[in-house]
């Protein structure tokens, strides 16, 4: 092996994945944009304290910044729920195999093809004041697509030579799953489930636009970007649309770009994407 042994082969795969993410220009820019949105939300009290009675577009911008935390919290909690459901659904289908597995994943595919964004609209109308239930509906509506992707990742890994070789090396099925498949699947699964976050934010924005969902309180407490958009459409001017619309658009782009970066990180971790990286 003269001339082959060299440095760099002992670099942790997580560091390699991070390098892969950083190599994605879109991912880095997306992360920066998301950080900027979050910083804007954190600085909102300072901005509003400096200008206590803003008007017009400035007022809408301050309100949109004020809604950063509520929007991301709602979106984040719904996305976590969606990811959990997707992992259980897709992972269960991959592990079940036989006839049940394909049926479960077909069901997820069919559900993903349905007009699920209407589900939060209906729930928003029925469960208006209940933020928790609304987040649950958002999470469930966003789960099928990541479930299909999670199934693809896990099924490919369970069928891979890596799992077969671990079996040949005497590892039990549980050990193969816990010590081989899941660590190798971590980044691809994160990339698969990440798509739930922009999905729930978009659905919440759509519900808010038609004045459904949470945050339409009288004093604007708990307002989200969706509710601000709805209020602007209902009674405000075009300037009121600008703040929440812009922040929502930037956040959706940033989350999509981060998803691209995660996909690249997964491909870097496992060159060639042989193990089902999305």
């Amino acid at each position, binding site marked *: *092996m003269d001339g*082959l*042994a060299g440095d*760099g*082969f*002992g*670099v*942790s*795969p*997580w560091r*390699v994945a991070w390098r892969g993410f950083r190599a994605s220009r879109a991912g880095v820019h997306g992360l920066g944009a998301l950080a900027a949105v979050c910083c804007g939300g954190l600085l909102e009290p300072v901005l509003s304290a400096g200008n206590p009675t803003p008007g017009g577009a400035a007022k809408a911008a301050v309100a949109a910044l004020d809604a950063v935390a509520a929007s991301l919290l709602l979106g984040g909690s719904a996305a976590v729920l969606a990811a959990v459901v997707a992992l259980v659904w897709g992972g269960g289908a991959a592990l079940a195999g*036989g*006839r049940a597995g394909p049926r479960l994943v077909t069901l997820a595919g069919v559900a993903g093809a349905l007009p699920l964004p209407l589900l939060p609209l209906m729930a928003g109308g029925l469960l208006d004041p209940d933020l928790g239930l609304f987040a649950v509906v958002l999470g469930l509506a966003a789960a099928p697509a990541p479930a299909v992707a999670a199934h693809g990742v896990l099924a490919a890994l369970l069928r*891979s*030579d*890596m799992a*077969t*070789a*671990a*079996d*040949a*090396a*005497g*590892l*039990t099925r549980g*050990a193969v799953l816990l*010590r*081989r498949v899941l*660590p*190798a699947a*971590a980044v691809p699964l994160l990339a698969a489930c990440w798509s739930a976050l922009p999905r729930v934010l978009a659905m919440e924005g759509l519900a808010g636009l038609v004045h459904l969902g949470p945050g339409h309180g009288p004093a604007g407490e708990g307002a989200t970007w969706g509710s601000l958009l709805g209020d602007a459409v209902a009674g405000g001017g075009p300037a009121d649309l600008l703040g929440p619309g812009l922040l929502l658009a930037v956040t959706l782009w940033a989350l999509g770009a981060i998803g691209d970066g995660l996909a690249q990180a997964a491909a870097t*971790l*496992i*060159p060639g994407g*042989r*193990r089902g990286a999305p």
Partner: protein
Amino acid sequence: MTSVTAAVPHPDHRILTAEGVGVFRPRRGGGAGTDLLSGIHLSLDAAEVVAVVGDEGSGKTLLLRALAGLLPPGVERVGRVAAGRAVLVPADGGLWPGAPLAEQFAAALAPFGLGRGAALRRAERLLTRLHLDNPARWLPLCPHQMGEGNRWRAALALGMAALNGGTGTEETGGLFLADAPGAGLDPTVRARLLHLLADWARESGAAVLLAGRAGDGLDGPADRVLRLSGGSLGPAPERDEAVAAPLVPSGPPVLSVRGLRVAVPLVRGGGGPLVVDDVSFDVGPGETVVLLGESGSGKAVLLRALARLMPAVSGRAAWMGHDLLTLDDGAVRAARGDVQMLFPDPRAALAPTVTLGDQMTEALDALQPGFTPAEQAARAAAALELAGLPLAATGYYPARLPPELAAAAGLARALVTGPRLLLADDPFAALDDGGRGRFLERLLRVQQARSLALVVATADADAACRLAHRVLVMLNGRVVEEAPAADLVRDPRHPFTRALLAAAEGHRPALDGDPPGLFAVPSGCPVRRRCPRVRDFCAQAVPEPEVVRPGHRVSCHYWDVADDGDAGTG
């Protein structure tokens, strides 16, 4: 896509002249850049076929693109290239995935003044030249609707059409560049296709430059073979690879396989077509048995069944007196310390997030519990040394290792339990020519050091004959010829064996067409549709093994009939 550069007529029959060609990546802000290729001098005459071989990353693709004037962004060329019309068929064949072949041929032939009808007739002629059956049936289809072999036939025919309308002369032949043509095809199919391409070049006056890995059969049809190494082009050296030491018989077989049948489980509870059918063989201590066959021959499935990674339908595999196929889970685990496996792509077979050292320790914990950590470390160190890796390799993560290092890592992982039988599934698949030679040598050294019994599955007849004491040639799940390696090289009797050996030596194999798929195996002899010796009786019965001489058996109805001039080549 197949790319065409502008035509510049050349005054004599020299098609390509490249003088002092170099390719470099310029440094930002000026200054000397990075040389990728340098000092390339190359000339090709009309009707000449030249092969450029080189290891992975040696710059073969870059050279072809530099000659075609199709360099990727970010690199620049120096030197002089004078060529006529040139076509580059890229590494994947370059067919447009979304368009039917008919459209692609019509577009390629339009510059030669052919209307759609005439273009399709010309396309049919070119496809027939490359032995595509019933080309009119394929022309309305898109590339993804074709098998790999037919897709390559179509890609090369399209390149021929785009170059000179498929019918050039010495003056108008043009330059045909092909990057890894036929990559991924079975050796006999690829060799046959390359010879047909060379025939066309010699008739049409085209100059052909083929680039690929050594050992991919490019040298067979070529008039000259050059090697690209270190960014420079030079003559290809003679291959000098190790061969197995003669086997000294030392006792009864350690592995005895009888009547093994394995089916693809298509439905729950088994059931499905047999992919290994009634295979029997013995492996002695320190012996190397090679299962030689093309894709779909069942060689890899057989190995996995022996390692109990796939269930067998019936049969017996006696290992040191125990039937591997019927052992309970506990006994299988104990046996796996003795019987280990190498996989075709070691990077895919080793966990990417666990260091090599931890994977070796885990295997020891699972298969041979009871060692102290110090003993485990000593065993890992010994396995690494045998595999030719430094001790520091215990800290390597396998996913990003280069192929040769990954192959050594896979070998070390398999050796750590001290196996007495190693099952190697296409261990050279991911290696280039140099890596293959070194790994083959390493495997032979390990075998001698540990007195390992070795069962290797491969499609590489050259490696098989170097490595093996005995070769079993497999076809559609059956052994069609079995002989000591030296006998097989000297006197192959089955037409399929002859074709495999001919392809490995660069000759034109006599077998035509693609291997039949799992669900399209013909009645009688499975190779009869490709066989030059076929008779009516071949369709009526599957040939039974017959003894040619002690230790040499062949399953062919007409193995003892005098050749009709098909001495493996056609």
